[in-house]
């Protein structure tokens, strides 16, 4: 993870609202996106992430608030004069044009000579790995190739911000993973701000410098992937990003920067206040990631705390095995993941086990 705090601001949202009739699609968006950052807007469908992207591009007007790009208020700037370019979800390749006509579409007003423009098109195609595809008809391309054309067509205009609207969702799994890495490399190479919209949390974690998680038209948390994963700000974010076990808990005492709780199946635990990001409410739960729980074999000793349990389900993945375990004679079931290394046999359903865990890996949601 690179630190982005010292980079200049590229995009700034100030209390952005968007209404469609009575429907409140964006509910007060605030935040900044830094220059050269790979930024993701992540959330389930209907959360407003695509709407927010389209307001940056200028395809949607905002009802109130301010969007600044590179220090300029975009309120009166039309889509065709904004310093942004978009890779559309459908790629929007012009079907009546060849690949090079598509890539050179935005160069009509460019003062360069015809030969220089042709060289720029060839260079852009080379950058996305489509060298020599210029003369092909656009409709004869595969999904992955169309996406590369869409990328080249946007990047050739050297925008300050590249907007990507679910660009990988139409590709198969192998191709998607391949393109994730290529996009990261491309972003480092060109150094411009990328803003990616995705509903795939794994994709966002892999690719982004920072991620804004959105629910119901609001940003629930804006953080780097590691913070988002280890210290989710709300239970909803924790549930959306990766797998999280939730265990019912009661708060015993709160003094200074310590919170003492009783978690069902785990017992009494003292937590740092930083592990309790939400304000007090009803039904507190603690969250635990599967990989922070470990099965103890034979006479292994837990470095911190341990709890007894019974295996309820075994899910074998080859390199990993997932176990669903009832904790300490209660009905609380947690999922934990173990790497399958030599000398560590896969255990059967019903086996009594000891589970090691660390209080510092807990997050309390109140």
């Amino acid at each position, binding site marked *: 993870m690179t630190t982005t705090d010292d980079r200049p601001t590229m995009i700034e949202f100030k209390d952005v609202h968007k209404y469609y009739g009575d429907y409140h699609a964006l509910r007060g968006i605030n935040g900044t996106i830094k220059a050269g950052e790979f930024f993701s807007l992540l959330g389930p469908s209907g959360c407003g992430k695509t709407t927010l992207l389209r307001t940056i591009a200028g395809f949607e007007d905002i009802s109130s608030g301010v969007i600044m790009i590179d220090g300029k208020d975009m309120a009166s700037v039309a889509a065709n004069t904004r310093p*942004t370019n978009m890779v*559309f979800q459908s790629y*929007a390749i*012009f*079907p*009546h044009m060849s690949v090079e006509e598509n890539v050179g*579409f935005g160069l*009509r007003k460019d003062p360069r000579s015809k030969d220089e423009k042709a060289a720029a098109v060839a260079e852009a195609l080379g950058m996305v790995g489509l060298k020599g595809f210029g003369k092909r008809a*656009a409709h004869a391309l595969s999904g992955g190739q169309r996406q590369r054309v869409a990328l080249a067509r946007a990047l050739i205009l050297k925008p300050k911000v590249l907007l990507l609207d679910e660009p990988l969702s139409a590709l198969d799994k192998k191709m998607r993973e391949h393109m994730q890495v290529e996009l990261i490399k491309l972003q480092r190479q060109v150094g411009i701000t990328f803003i990616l919209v995705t509903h795939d949390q794994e994709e966002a974690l892999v690719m982004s410098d920072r991620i804004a998680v959105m629910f119901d038209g609001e940003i629930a948390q804006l953080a780097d992937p590691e913070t988002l994963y280890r210290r989710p700000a709300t239970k909803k974010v924790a549930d959306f990003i990766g797998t999280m076990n939730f265990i019912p808990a009661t708060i015993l005492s709160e003094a200074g920067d310590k919170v003492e709780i009783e978690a069902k199946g785990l017992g009494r635990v003292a937590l740092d206040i930083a592990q309790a990001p939400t304000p007090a409410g009803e039904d507190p739960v603690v969250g635990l990631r599967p990989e922070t729980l470990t099965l103890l074999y034979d006479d292994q000793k837990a470095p911190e705390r341990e709890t007894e349990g019974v295996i309820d389900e075994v899910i074998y993945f080859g390199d990993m095995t997932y176990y669903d375990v009832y904790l300490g004679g209660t009905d609380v079931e947690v999922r934990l993941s173990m790497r399958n290394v030599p000398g560590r046999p896969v255990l059967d359903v019903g086996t009594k086990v000891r589970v090691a865990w660390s209080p510092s890996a807990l997050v309390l949601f109140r």
Partner: protein
Amino acid sequence: MAQPLGSEARAGLKLISPTAIYVILLLAVPLATVLIYSVLTGGRGNVSLPITIENYAELWTKAQYGYIMLKSLLVALTVTFITVMLAYPVAYFVSFHVKPERKSLWLFLITIPFWTSYIIRVSLWFVILGYGGIVDSALASIGLPPLNVASYSLLSIVIVLAHAYAPFAVLPIFVSLEKVDRSLLEAGQDLGESRWITFLRVTLPLSMPGVIAAALIVFIPTVGDYVTPELVGDGKEPMIANVIEIQLLKLQNFPQGSAFAVASMLMVGIVSVLFVLWNKRYIGGQK
């Protein structure tokens, strides 16, 4: 290949036979008759051997025939041009600016002129364009002299035909505009072009198949239109169809009339092929 017909093939033959018989008796046989007549020697009300190209030579050499063919062609092309130019904005409006749930209502409204017989519609144009008609009385009320548009036969024919075929032109253009992916228009603007230039570079080329289909749909029937010149032009500006009628029914010169009919079919055929070839340019680049 010489296998007995399967049940599917027999069922297929049964299904198409009514149409096939209709087409053979009422289309292929008359067409063949016209073709054969056009190369026979003609008397009044009869045809006889020997085979001759005299009838076609007549068409080629007599200036008045060439004039009528050329006039029909130009009138039809003018009507086609005007109709398509008027139909495009209507189709564009319905496709891009009418809410999806209202589109079928709009298309339905466009077909309303068809609820009235063509003859009545033509007569109504007299009321509008004729001496002392709506146009003239409107002009008179603001102190201008009457135009009496109806006295200009060719102009009236063009106006009436362009109005009559407008709905036929709207539909194919509408269909081709509906197929234009809306994200392409956003892409055009995203890449720095204004709405108007995006229309010229993206929407218009993608809708050309519909425009060409509309042009064909208007052009083919207008070349051979019989009723309009007869009623609107008062028969003063005969077109191909009117001359064929005179030759076949009034003069009973069957071979000469047939040769004229064949020549006009050829003309329509050549222009249509040109349109289709033009269309290929646009269809070729798409799925």
